[in-house]
């Protein structure tokens, strides 16, 4: 493959991680996972970089990225709002929260607000069903959320 890379955009840790995993089976998923840890998502540039370092076609990388729901290929907002849509949360109105947040922020699921401040995602069970419905903003968890609390939660991060 002749893809050229000018400058490596990855941190030294990430590069040595990739070197370590280079020839192991299942390495691509692990490596892309690590890239997402570092950047919060896998950008086109990062995918190009991985393709170059592992000498595998870009199409193969996107095959994997698109197969796993976990991977993001667009930059999330500064504050990524994840609404749990696991069974418990769903039954307690998780989807209503998504709808309400969408209309408050003017975006749909998996979209980012124009100013780049917020993004909205639906996720599988986050493991605190007792608090359903649950949403997280960054590392902060909100439980038993009602619709009226949403403007307050948003303004907390604006």
């Amino acid at each position, binding site marked *: 493959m002749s893809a050229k890379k000018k400058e490596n955009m990855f941190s030294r840790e990430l590069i040595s991680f990739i070197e370590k995993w280079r020839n192991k089976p299942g390495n691509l998923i692990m490596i892309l996972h690590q890239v997402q840890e570092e950047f919060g998502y896998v950008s086109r540039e990062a995918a190009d970089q991985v393709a170059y370092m592992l000498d595998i076609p*870009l*199409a*193969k990388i996107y095959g994997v990225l698109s197969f796993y*729901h976990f991977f993001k290929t667009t930059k999330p907002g500064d504050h990524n709002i994840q609404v749990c849509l696991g069974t418990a949360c769903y039954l307690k109105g998780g989807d209503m929260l998504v709808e309400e947040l969408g209309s408050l922020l003017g975006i749909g699921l998996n979209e980012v607000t124009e100013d780049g401040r917020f993004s909205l995602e639906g996720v599988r069970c986050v493991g605190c069903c007792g608090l359903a419905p649950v949403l997280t903003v960054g590392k902060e968890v909100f439980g038993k959320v009602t619709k009226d609390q949403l403007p307050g939660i948003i303004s907390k991060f604006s």
Partner: protein
Amino acid sequence: MNTVHMKINGKPVEIEAGSNILAAAKKANVNIPTLCYHPDLPAWAACGLCVVKQENSPKLLRACAAPVQENLSIITHDAELYQIRKTVIEMILSTHPNDCLMCARNGTCELQRFAAEFGVREQPYEVRLVDLPKDTSTTSIVLDPSKCIKCGRCVQVCQDMQGVFALEFIGRGDHTVVSPAADLPLNDSPCIKCGQCSAHCPVGAIYEKDEIGDFVRAVSNPELHVVTQIAPAVRVALGESFNLPAGTITTGKIYSALRRLGVAKVFDTNFSADLTIMEEGSELVKRLTTGKGAIPQITSCCPAWTDYMEKYYPDMIPNFSTAKSPMMMQGAITKTYYAEKANVDPATIYSVAIMPCTAKKYEIGRDDNMHASGFKDVDLVLTTREFARLIKASGIDFLTLEDEKADSPIGEYAGAGTIFGNTGGVMEAALRTAYNLMTGEDLKNVEIDAVRGMEGVRTGEVDIKGTTLKVAVAHGMANVSTLLEEVREAKANGDEPPYHFIEVMACRGGCVSGGGQPYATTDEVRAQRIAGLYTDDEQSEVRCSHQNPEIKQIYADYLGAPLSEKSHHLLHTTYTERPLYKH
């Protein structure tokens, strides 16, 4: 050979070990329906249409993927299998638009065929269609994801046969589509426009760009002087669209059909294949004898291959023959040499090429070198498939046409020109003339077996009166890497180049199975078309390009000599490194 004994519907069958059950059934005169399987590709076993039963076992097997076994007894057809297969088809149809009447594959679609054979009359399952736009970004092929049945053939072709990796399955489950990486349009991807995906797609999800309308408009425009050329491989494949066996030579009928379609002149790309040999052969001899220019010299007549090289092997640019492809040479001399001779204003000439190839649609706009005449050297490319439709839609009864001859002065060809259409043919044609150029004598036996055959990579040595020429041939784009890695390695180590001359064609078997040829191409069909071209060669009075009288004439009257300044301007080109992805 290890033989396996088994039974198909009670009938004993002997078959080579390692074959699949489909092949065993064929031996018992039974056809098992298949949709995802294609004999060019390893079985992927995605569709389930080929299910068969193992006698005395509840197990269902997929005949495309299951290998034969000693004492295996297989039931291929019964009431239950019929019902299963019909259900498979109905389920596929529940996710497939039913606008067959307006589909590019109407009449040639494999899914449509099975829906007809199994008498599907209703839609018992909930309909869920994919609503995604078509990708019309390339000059050559159209991708319509709404028609895709996810058989996987195109992905296997693009990755394994062609080594391009433009297409991949993107997404998962119901949302899977076949697409380039990062949601890019195909034209921004590494796609080389070979069209092999379109030739293998069972349905109307990938098909050639149809430009028949441009042809019809041109011939009905009284201001335009329409001039045509046909590629070598077209003459041994077009007949299939009219139910003739593969390999039937229909050159004379094609000339005749073109005249009835209203074109002013009928020329032949084979003439310019001879011209290519004069230029490329002289270039090779010059590189070998003067030590100037990179060795090995690599052929450049396949536009998919040049595109691939510019993207994947740009370090090989100096090794590429600068000779243009026969089609582009023919275009350039049509609007210069022919225009002058016939006293026609080149601005009014509309030049049409009938080609086995979708990449040729891309080649005519590659870069400014394709305007060597001062005009667009080739205005339009129609593939063999489009040409067949055009003949039918024009009411021409192809099979009863009288054979006619091509027009002068750029229509005559030597046998060497015609074998350009198959793997090894360009090499053989070049060697016939290179021998003459190097020794001043002609070969006694012009048939060079060392370069013939179907193996993906072939190497050999040819003796030119004491000088040994090391040659190699590759076809099926992915096969080229073995050869080029060898060349790269020798170069890196400072060793002698392992070869002097390499021929590369992107399509398996060469242009005879180009991406624009009639459907249902298998190795059997390839072999028949190739045999047709060798027969055409054998039947030619003149076998070597340099002996073609019209070739002698164009050099005497117009070009001077091979590699002359005029030749360079009209018949040679340059290459540029290109990124795999435009964005």
